[in-house]
């Protein structure tokens, strides 16, 4: 059960592509094919494994990100994405394998330790605290202080000014930095967290499902800031299970399936269907789509038989297969 897909070592050649795939690649390439940097990865997990008791959460997985590059970490639920980013961000320590920064081995003792070294992680649901003000959120754990000795205090004025400036820089005009973050939209909250990471000198930005709970427009705002962070020279690890969000921004795609690496590709080597298939859900989705079409056809037949006027438009059987995403609808 735990091993339906054979592990694909990430250094094997990519799977041969059908002609329509090549066509898509041509299209995706036009959107901004960028030369893949061969610089030393700013952050790299090399052959890491993590076990929780007898459960294999991750086994022999590698992932690296270079400055000015977006590496999309893709995988279905339970593929090990969360475990991997917890290792990258210092929450867990790998049971085996090596972590490297700028080619040097590192050992993150804690998330704070990773943060101090410039690895900032923005978690989907833990990005910000809605009941705290914008300026307080911006500086949690790194509060500017003023004054001396026992009268050293949180510099509220400076925090408010900086937060306002930084938010303006990312395109959100804050008139009152003491306003609660709960008043911001979901996309703006994620954006605030990204801006905070950049402000505090992050070199690697790990974004955990930043677009999953967002509507289309909101997700676009976040994706724009992913690209912006990349052009500033940050290494971005973008975790998602939404291939449509990954393809436009990714330079590199790392796919996890059942705790193992299911391949690593650079932009242009794969298309949406291929990524979906590798994530372990593609075949099932194709099957599901076929089944749904049959049901739909049967249903339409039944309706016609019942002589009901043709108000029901059957969905086109060749409608594009999209990934099933319960969380895609806007929840905030």
């Amino acid at each position, binding site marked *: 059960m735990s091993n339906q897909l054979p592990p694909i070592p990430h250094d094997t050649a990519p799977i041969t592509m059908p002609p329509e795939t090549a066509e898509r690649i041509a299209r995706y390439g036009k959107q901004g094919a960028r030369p893949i940097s061969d610089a030393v990865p700013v952050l790299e997990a090399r052959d890491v494994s993590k076990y929780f008791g007898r459960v294999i959460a991750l086994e022999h997985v590698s992932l690296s990100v270079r400055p000015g590059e977006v590496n999309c970490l893709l995988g279905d639920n339970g593929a090990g994405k969360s475990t991997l980013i917890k290792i990258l*961000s210092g*929450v867990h320590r790998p049971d085996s394998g090596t972590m490297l920064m700028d080619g040097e081995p590192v050992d993150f003792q*804690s*998330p*704070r330790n990773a*943060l*101090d070294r410039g690895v900032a*992680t923005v*978690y989907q649901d*833990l*990005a*910000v*605290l*809605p*009941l*705290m003000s914008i300026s*307080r959120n911006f*500086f*949690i*754990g*790194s*509060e500017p*202080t003023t004054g001396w000795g026992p009268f*050293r*205090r*949180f510099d*509220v004025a400076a925090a408010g000014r900086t937060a306002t400036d930084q938010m303006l*820089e*990312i*395109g*959100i*005009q*804050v*008139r*009152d930095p*003491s*306003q*609660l973050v*709960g*008043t*911001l*939209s979901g996309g*703006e909250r994620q954006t605030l967290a990204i801006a905070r990471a950049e402000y505090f000198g992050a070199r690697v930005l790990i974004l955990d499902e930043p677009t999953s709970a967002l509507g289309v427009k909101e997700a676009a*705002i976040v994706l*724009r800031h992913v*690209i*912006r962070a990349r*052009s500033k020279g940050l290494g971005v690890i973008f975790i998602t299970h939404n291939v449509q969000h990954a393809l436009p921004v990714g330079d590199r795609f790392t796919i996890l399936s059942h705790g193992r690496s299911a391949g690593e590709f650079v932009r242009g080597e794969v298309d949406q269907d291929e990524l979906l298939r590798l994530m372990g859900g593609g075949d099932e989705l194709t099957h599901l789509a076929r089944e749904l079409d049959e049901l739909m056809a049967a249903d339409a037949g039944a309706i016609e038989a019942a002589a009901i006027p043709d108000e029901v438009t059957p969905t086109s059987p060749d409608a594009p297969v999209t990934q099933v995403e319960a969380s895609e609808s806007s929840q905030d």
Partner: protein
Amino acid sequence: MTTASATGGDQRLRSVSPLRLFLSRPEFGAIVGAIIVFLIFAVLSVARGDVGKGFLSIQGAASYLEIAAQVGILGAAVSLLMIAGEFDLSVGSMIGASGLLLGLLIVQYGVPPTIAIVLTFAFALAVGAFNGWLRIKTGLPSFIVTLGMLLILRGAGIGFTRAITSNTIVSGVNANTANDPIVKLFTASVTIGGGEFKVVLLWWIVAVVVATWVLTRTRFGNWIFAVGGGEQAARYVGVPVHRVKVILFMTTAASAALLACIQVLSFGSADVLRGTNKEFEAIITAVVGGTLLTGGYGSALGSAFGAFILGTTQLGINFVGINSDWYQVVLGAVLLLAVLANTYLLRRASGSR
């Protein structure tokens, strides 16, 4: 990439007037409530012809402010703890237990008052730290951990005191403490216009000012909000979550010890039952003051107004001739109204509907 044009049209924040800002403060509900409660009793007093006496006299004010101060000292500490997302139900029996300890040390063992006071605070801080440690180590809700501590402290207080003195009341404390300058810090009072204002008022003001300053103007205060608003999120950005919680449990225990010192040294006796139900009054004070039961939001200043409501209600009922049996009914109603109002205000402040 021009970000300004991208989001410039999607402006979500409106400009805010100072009034709106005040409305969105957590203590707003408590301030309005305090004014309303005061006015109700004032009107009832005037209707009885009680102008210049009873509720509307300086003696009256000194009396209800003293009650407010006693619960307010606890409320300031408890609101910080509750903002950090934890409860301390043991403060009530901590008042009884640390009071007994102080009394026994002074009367039974002849310990100089100053040293006895220091030892009492040390005991309270240790129990508070233990509460915090137990909460963190076991992962049990602090409600349960401190409920256990409530019973342990109450029971141990009775057990030890009866074993040592064959009584549950230690009296005669003032015989040993007269003329001690340190004791004066807990017992002094000043008479203004015929009303005797106790030093506990000063302690209350100090507690509220310090708690408010810590909460709104220090890094630690930001951590308190963060721990209560999202423990994991706070931990990930490097907030020492456990340390914050342990310090706050120690603070609530210390506030109980402070109240115990004031009571024992003023009344000259310690009673194991002293402080009964004070844990709930402290929570009510905090909640009425705008602190969210689930943590992450609140105000120490608000707890002062919550305490004021409690004090004026408790004595006001007597002053206007309502049977004091009805005090708890009124208190319960005030609590429910305050929570409803605060929930509504918070929803407005956080922009969610």
